[in-house]
């Protein structure tokens, strides 16, 4: 059972799902079956949880953009339709024990997962500043709510139709400096996360990024959602965005190598491992 509404370029969809609402922590995502019982689309679609509310025993709200057939189908759901939804999934945003200054950076619908996080952070006494961006005004999600919640809120659009003309990363350094931020949280397109991580490195503060990789299962069995991440031991491994992520420490993600197998990753080809040598091991 659910309700739907349009929010600018996005669709917001609220589902009664007490089990998910109860266990939810900011940064979690869910997967949704699309197309109904006779669907030709066997893969679930992943969506960040935007909000959970206690109504009806617990509801979950998702915010999504129509991209292809699955989201087009979702956009046509009506009140009282039922939805097959699995969650909460993934590693949520780690939150600091102490009250620190946090900048929350969101791109496009990536902003959606930042408000529950902001809530939690503020409950712990953290200061929260928002930087939200998108290509155009109608695709900036949550500006009003950010203005209500954030100490400051900076908006950016690439076409200048709202806030500053430019990208999130253009506005970020000033916001960090002004807020004297201790940590950054970011959710949005991969290019933005890469940029945000670079800014964090300049300021030498930690950054938690929530990545988006195509996923077939969402709970760790299919191995389709991997990206190269540097482990505690300094070794790069192809790790699963769905269970080891989607939230990673930004500096651990090898953004420039996403979509490749870095030659120095554990088990990378080139080492004789992938050539099929029987008794070799690639220690990456």
């Amino acid at each position, binding site marked *: 059972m659910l309700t739907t509404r349009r929010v600018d370029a996005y669709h917001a969809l609220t589902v009664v799902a007490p089990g998910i609402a109860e266990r939810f922590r900011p940064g979690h995502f869910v997967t949704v*079956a699309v197309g109904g019982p006779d669907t030709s689309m066997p*893969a679930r679609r992943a969506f960040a949880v935007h909000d959970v509310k206690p109504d009806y025993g617990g509801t979950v709200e998702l915010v999504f953009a129509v991209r292809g057939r699955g989201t087009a189908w979702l956009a046509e759901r009506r009140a009282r339709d039922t939805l097959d939804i699995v969650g909460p999934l993934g590693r949520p945003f780690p939150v600091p024990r102490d009250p620190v200054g946090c900048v929350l950076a969101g791109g496009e619908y990536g902003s959606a997962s930042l408000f529950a996080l902001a809530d939690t952070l503020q409950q712990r006494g953290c200061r929260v500043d928002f930087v939200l961006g998108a290509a155009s005004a109608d695709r900036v999600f949550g500006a009003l709510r950010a203005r209500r919640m954030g100490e400051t809120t900076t908006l950016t659009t690439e076409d200048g139709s709202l806030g500053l003309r430019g990208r999130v990363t253009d506005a970020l350094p000033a916001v960090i400096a002004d807020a004297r931020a201790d940590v950054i949280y970011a959710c949005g397109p991969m290019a933005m996360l890469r940029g945000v991580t670079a800014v964090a490195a300049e300021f030498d503060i930690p950054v938690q990024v929530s990545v988006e990789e195509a996923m077939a299962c969402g709970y760790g069995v299919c191995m389709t959602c991997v990206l190269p991440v540097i482990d505690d031991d300094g070794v790069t491994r192809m790790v699963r965005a769905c269970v080891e992520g989607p939230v990673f420490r930004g500096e651990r993600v090898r953004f420039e190598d996403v979509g490749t197998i870095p030659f120095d990753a554990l088990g990378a080809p080139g080492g004789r491992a992938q050539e099929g040598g029987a008794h070799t091991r690639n220690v990456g």
Partner: protein
Amino acid sequence: MRTYLAHVELANPITTAAGCAGSGAELAQFFDVSRLGAVVTRSITMAPRAGRPTPRLAETPSGLLTAVGLQGPGVDAFLAAELPRLAERGARAVVSIAGGSVAEYTALARRLADAPGVTAVEVNLSCPNVADLGRVFARDPAASAEVVAAVRATMRYDVPVVAKLAPDAADIVAVARACVDGGADALALINTPLGMAIDVDTMRPALAAGTGGLSGPAVRPLAVRCLWQVHAALPGVPLVGMGGVSTGRDALELVLAGACAVAVGTALFHDPYAGLRVLRELEDLLKERGFERFADAVGLAHRPPGAAPRHRTDLEESPL
């Protein structure tokens, strides 16, 4: 619903498909994996493998194209960590192995030979044969037989060796027969046929690897056909069926074609409980149809129930 994989008894005929159940630990979060007939591991390689670049996934009508590239920890880490965890959970573990040469398969078998908790070995033959310009073993009866014979000679006699075949062979029966002659105790079919998708927006292949394996409901007709042909030619050989099973009806279809065990793969991505659900549905369907023993259903579609003229079956092997 006991069944036998060669001489090994399984509590029920539903297993996971190789490469579709992670390390086993992920499913164990949801239910007790010892309730499955067996857990088939991902295909284990000698060395750790990082696999293919992403995107590794594309969806096609009723199908999934994937190119994971056998990402995995390598046999040593597998034996040290994954296999013991499966045993602790009480799961029957069928270990799938993959290699690029007969020597590599043999070396894998040697490592497994002494390992406790190996219920059976499944030999994934859908791997490029380095010695044959990367031609896939499973397309070549002789190469397949050679691998199977080497593994059979190396494994303990009481551990069944299951050869896993793919549908894109010119003559699946020839490959099956070669594997049995090479010593396979059972056969598993089907692995994913090679497919491809092109993104019409980027105008490039949807998968980084170009081609990928096609799985899911779309391939079930190929699985049924392969099981049917192989069971007809080699009725005494135990067959593990897989390919597009997501309901008890799908599983029953494969059983009627000749499978004495059925693996669930892609459906697990949609629903971690798919294996147990398929099992329950299969049990109900068999009960409804009055079967007392599971074995009575295996291959039943081959045995005409008297003279039913609307279902006379003439099997000439042409699709038209």
